[in-house]
């Protein structure tokens, strides 16, 4: 064993989403703004897919590798590297925000019902700001 632990990615493992679910449920701001925050989003990480069902400001359900019958509203698609760079409290330029990445990171995109994404921009911004505090790696 080396003296310095190598940080290991914990995203998008199920435990990471459970941590996000708990942090979102405890967040005072989401409690204020989340009443109408209801939509389904898919996070694509390289070839992995996870669907989050968001209901009234909370993560109601996490569906890793959903079957063919599962539908959602908005897809956030990026590489593992994109997500790891984004999911930290102080990301580098162009990785601070979903719209920043959509604008400046060619491998990242916001797809699907983008009107719905814009409609829920404030609450989505808060949810992913919470996700950034969790980070993508342990150690």
């Amino acid at each position, binding site marked *: 064993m080396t003296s310095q632990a190598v940080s290991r990615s914990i995203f998008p493992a199920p435990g990471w989403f459970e941590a996000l679910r708990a942090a979102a449920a405890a967040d005072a701001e989401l409690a204020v703004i989340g009443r109408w925050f209801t939509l389904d989003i898919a996070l694509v990480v390289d070839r992995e897919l996870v669907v989050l069902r968001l209901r009234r400001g909370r993560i109601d359900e996490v569906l890793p590798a959903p079957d063919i019958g599962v539908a959602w509203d908005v897809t956030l698609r990026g590489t593992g590297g994109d997500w790891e760079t984004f999911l930290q*409290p*102080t*990301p580098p*330029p*162009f990785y*601070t*925000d*979903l*719209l*920043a990445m959509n*604008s*400046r990171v060619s491998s990242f995109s916001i797809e699907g019902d983008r*009107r719905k994404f*814009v*409609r829920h*921009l*404030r609450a989505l*911004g808060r949810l992913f700001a919470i996700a*950034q505090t969790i980070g993508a790696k342990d150690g």
Partner: protein
Amino acid sequence: MAEFDPITGRYVYLDTGWGRSRVFFEEAGSGRPLLCLHTAGADSRQYRELLCDKEIGARWRIIAFDLPYHGRSTPPEGWWEKEYLLTTEAYTATIMAFVRALGLEQPVVLGCSMAGAIVLDLARRYPTEVGAVIGLEAASKIEGRFVDWSIQPDVNGSEMVATWTYGLMAPQSPEPSRRDVWWIYSQGGPGVYRGDTYFYSVDWDLRGREGDIDTSACPVYLLTGEYDYACTPAETAATAAAIPGARSATMEGIGHFPMTENYPRFREYLLPILQELGTDEGRSSR
């Protein structure tokens, strides 16, 4: 004992290409005029910390006004029958009308984002009336900001614009300051941010005309935050390189709203420029 800011606010009536508007401005300090122009969809509150900076106010008369349609400045009568779309002509004419109405001599004009762009037009067209310009988050051409999202009936335009612009800031900037930016943006009139970005992202295009600016008559300084993804430091550097004699720098750990999101950090970049430009005494010998 009550605590007061050193700022006083007044209204002035301006006749512009839009018609007659009652325009709010606030000021502090005394000395050479430092005219501060707010960003798209915002107002002069963005300069609160600069206006309260007593060290700068000891040598500069710091003035910030709200464009018509913004903050406490009224839109001209009949606004409800016209789509608000800011143009280069209307923007420049309004700023110069304000400069002349207040009798500002050789002001240094500081502008951010769309105002960072327009100060380059002031330097190009009014080098004898404008003493120098400082453009923040400015480049010859900005793409992608003019969209209809904020005026669609199923979108809360107030929250949408405030959140979209919130993402332009650096994560290192203090959260209360970033939230101030959000709050100011949330109070813009409907369609005003969109109308401003018509200027910033559609009408404004300095490409090929940068060399028209004579920096020996009107010095040009360009500063851009490293986290700005609407106008990147590389885009600003390219514009500065095309303006002979222009000076530029990248502000580390800052995003698109330097004077509001992290004033102490921004001040480190602003002070040397103001010292270089001097004050009343320095100007008379220039």
